[in-house]
């Protein structure tokens, strides 16, 4: 197909794709523009001049809340969730390559984890912690709540990866006398590394942006999405948009870093 000339279908779809991208970025650009709102401007158009006032304001102390603290918490939580999601999904993916009792049950439990409405999990975890007498906190109850959201994604991705993974490589390695650990570390792991990075990225961003599941499990301190939501009870300035712009830029950086990591792994593998 790649040798054909561009067809009409290509141009129609390219236009469709462009429209889709515009649709995705349209409102975001509204935010981007409004975050440069003048000092007296509000949350809506028109612009009252152009300034960096709200970005400066973002890094100052707000009248209410604590962007810095909640950002840090969300970041740490995101990294924690990322690491655990990668490790647990990888293990589960390996487990599911063989038959074991309860495999189907576990698979459906993972799917259920995905489909159970977030607010129900949030409420449930909150109540359970209360009944047991544990203190809910962002690094315990909310951490668990986030995992119920990220793990199914991770497990499904690992499934897809291992379904396509030919055991021939491993057999070859074993024939050459590699132990099962060596086979795993030197053959399997490098091959699935890009997917693992993908799982990690997924885990991080899903957690970083999680709202409903954190609502009743965060304990004393807010994560960033909760903070943003709480802010709306008091903040009526474009500082919210400045925050939006900054987090989008941050996401860009995360993606670039991931891309770089994948490329790096790919190149190393190519060299090896």
């Amino acid at each position, binding site marked *: 197909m790649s040798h054909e000339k561009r067809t009409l279908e290509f141009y129609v779809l390219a236009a469709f794709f462009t429209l889709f991208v515009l649709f995705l970025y349209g409102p975001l650009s509204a935010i981007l523009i409004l975050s440069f709102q003048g000092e007296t401007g509000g949350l809506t*158009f028109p612009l009252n001049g152009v300034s960096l006032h709200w970005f400066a304001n973002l890094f100052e102390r707000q009248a209410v809340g604590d962007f810095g603290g909640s950002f840090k918490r969300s970041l740490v939580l995101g990294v924690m969730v990322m690491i655990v999601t990668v490790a647990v999904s990888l293990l589960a993916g390996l487990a599911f390559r063989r038959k074991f009792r309860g495999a189907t049950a576990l698979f459906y439990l993972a799917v259920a984890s995905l489909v159970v409405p977030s607010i129900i999990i949030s409420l449930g975890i909150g109540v359970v912690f209360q009944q047991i007498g544990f203190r809910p906190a962002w690094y315990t109850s909310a951490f668990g709540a986030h995992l119920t959201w990220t793990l199914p994604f991770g497990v499904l991705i690992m499934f897809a990866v291992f379904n396509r993974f030919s055991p021939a490589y491993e057999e070859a390695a074993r024939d050459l006398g590699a132990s099962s650990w060596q086979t795993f570390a030197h053959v399997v792991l490098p091959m699935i590394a890009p997917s693992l990075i993908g799982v990690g990225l997924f885990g991080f961003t899903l957690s970083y942006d999680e709202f409903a599941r954190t609502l009743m499990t965060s304990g004393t301190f807010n994560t960033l999405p909760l903070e943003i939501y709480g802010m709306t009870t008091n903040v009526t300035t474009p500082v919210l948009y400045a925050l939006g712009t900054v987090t989008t830029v941050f996401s860009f950086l995360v993606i670039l870093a991931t891309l770089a990591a994948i490329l790096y792994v790919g190149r190393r593998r190519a060299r090896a």
Partner: protein
Amino acid sequence: MTVALERPAIAAAKPARRRRLSLSAITPYLQSAPLALILGAFLLLPIIMIVVVSFWDYDFAAMYPDFLTTNYFDVLGSWVTWKTYLNTIKLAVIVWALTLFIGFWVAYFLAFHIRTTAMQMVLFLICTVPFLTSNIIRMISWIPVLGRNGLINSTLVQLGLVPKPIEWLLYSEFAVVLAMVHLYTLFMVTPIFNTLMRIDKSLVEAARDAGASRWQVLWNVIIPLAKPGMAIGTIFVVTLVMADFSTVQVMSGGQSASVALMMKNQMSLLQYPAAAANAVVLLVLVLLMVAGILRIVDIRKEL
């Protein structure tokens, strides 16, 4: 829960085969243990708790452990519940249809019309970036665009296309659907793109060599092979819409109801047993929908 739990019950009922407990035999159990533990503690236990609480009694001030079905009668016996569920399902169907349509064509374009893998990755990542921005911010970002004096309305009025601002752009069902499509399309694009990428291109070539038209190839080869991706995307989108409360609240300006919003209103006055009963009903409904989807497409086999 019912659906997911039916199967283990059957599985457990099978007579246990005697097996030698060697290290390699228990390996899968050890490997799957973390997943099982986490899901058990943070998913199963909380849901059991919710189910238990949904049978409790409550009055003005407190909840009392009990076994009452009143909460369920209250939920199922009111026309509001039915209307709200219908409304939410309607919303889910509309959003699903739109995201499926958009998601499929976007994924198709990326998978079959972009020639280099690098370009595919770049374009795909372009689609991913907005998804990494806070949902709440993405949602409220529509307000300055759609509002009475927003970007679209002021442009239309200035161009003289409409005499006065269009009211239904914001705080309407239209706004809710628009925002949801915006928020959730990526959940459709990703799995479909993933399945499309794995279609063996020689299959398509073979079909074309056999004289099939582009549409025939699309209809008879590509779409059937893309079904698992569509199924996964459908599960994502349907469950996200069914459980949504903030998008509906913000984008409809509080004018529309959704099931989760109804639960939130009950929770806001601390009527937890009622909210829990509602949650159980919602959960059963969503799981039935997912079971239906899984019956059509076994995603596990075709992943």
